[in-house]
């Protein structure tokens, strides 16, 4: 089944949400009872999925290879700097080659689909699924077989990270201005950030931080640092830090 119309409606709702902070939704979830004590686990950081581009006046996404490369460089540096402060050993995943590499990429996309479903059907209270409404419930996962990916045998958790930034074009910003005058909420830009921790013994998603409007311009080293701090806000086992402001990333 496909949902073109619903996607539009969801976009409209997100626009409304962005325009009305009163509708603010949850951004972090964890499996009930999950605790990660510092210095007890080996976490493998999977290769982050990073995409940057422009958002046309009509809201369509146009990927930009230069911006994406710049963001990859900045985020890699920011992640390397943050890795040591997470309370547990975090090591970068040694990418396999060939068919295994394609399987790793599929798992990354599965993580994206799961994180998007958590946002749409659990964090967004107005659209929560009845089976996800039960008290202290956070039942999401990638399946036990994720632990069988090459190179994960000695690890306890896999850390998946996704960022996708659609910077509003001038036309989009002008549209936003006129829409605001007509009292209609139109977002200029999407600044999606997901960070999720998966238990490699069970395949369960034990912690997720996911937001469609994160802060920090990933094309700028300081902004990438801010994005990474926001992605790791509330990371299990991490020493407590001052919260990072959730102001959406600057438009380009």
């Amino acid at each position, binding site marked *: 089944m496909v949902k073109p119309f619903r996607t539009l409606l969801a976009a*409209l709702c997100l626009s409304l949400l962005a325009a009305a902070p009163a509708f603010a939704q949850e951004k972090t979830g964890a499996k009930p009872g999950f605790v990660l004590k510092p210095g007890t686990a080996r976490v493998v950081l999977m290769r982050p999925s990073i995409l940057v581009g422009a958002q046309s006046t009509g809201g369509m996404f146009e990927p930009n290879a230069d911006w994406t490369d710049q963001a990859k460089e900045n985020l890699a540096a920011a992640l390397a700097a943050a890795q040591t402060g997470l309370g547990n050993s975090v090591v970068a995943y040694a990418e396999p080659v060939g068919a295994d590499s394609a399987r790793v990429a*599929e798992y990354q*996309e599965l993580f994206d*689909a799961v994180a998007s479903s958590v946002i749409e059907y659990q964090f967004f209270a107005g*659209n929560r*699924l*009845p089976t996800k409404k039960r008290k202290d419930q956070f039942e999401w996962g990638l399946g036990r077989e994720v632990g069988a990916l090459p190179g994960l045998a000695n690890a306890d958790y896999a850390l998946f990270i996704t960022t996708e930034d659609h910077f509003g074009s001038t036309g989009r910003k002008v549209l936003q201005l006129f829409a605001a005058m007509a009292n209609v909420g139109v977002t200029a830009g999407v600044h999606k950030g997901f960070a999720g921790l998966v238990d490699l013994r069970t395949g369960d998603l034990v912690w997720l931080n996911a937001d469609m409007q994160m802060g920090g311009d990933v094309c700028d080293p300081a902004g990438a640092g801010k994005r990474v701090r926001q992605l790791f806000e509330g990371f299990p086992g991490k020493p407590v830090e001052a919260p990072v402001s959730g102001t959406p990333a600057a438009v380009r």
Partner: protein
Amino acid sequence: MSITYRTGLSALAVFALAAPAMAGNTLIPPGLRVAVAKSAMTVVPSIEWNKLGARPGRNSESWTQDGDDLNDLTFYGGIEAGRPLFREVDKKNQPLPKVSATMLITDIPVLLENSYRVALGAASFKVDLVEPLPFAGNKGVRFTYSFSKQNETLQRRGEARGAVIAGKLYLITYEAPGLYYYDRSAAAFRAVAESVRL
């Protein structure tokens, strides 16, 4: 009209706009026969499902366990001749194929494939197996397929059962990513499909 009342109305209008995506998702309990897709089609689920408030089109409805991108069970309850399977995406430039009253059961997988090719852009779609299987006591078809969405490498699998009865198309589809999710709810889908009555 007082200003307060008008403000209230504007707020309501905002909710009304947002409503279709937020329209109540409801719980479908196991073991009870329920009518689906605003039609005479009824099924008995073996486990609980969530019925999504948003429908893919007229005479259809979707159930899910974890969200329609992770597991999607959709019922098409008697789509009339001349109508597409679901809502048009770009009617002017890329109209969806239409149901025909004279369709053979082997035309059903072709209709689904062509509808998805339009709706999902240039995504890949492959019908893997087609076999006759009675549907609610009528001559029907069962088929399996695999596809991926545009700009995605995540492989999705699907299984469907359907029939053309009195010139209308009845179809039940189940789709999920091949990794983990497909197998997780496939037995629950088959229990629903095997319980179908008209």
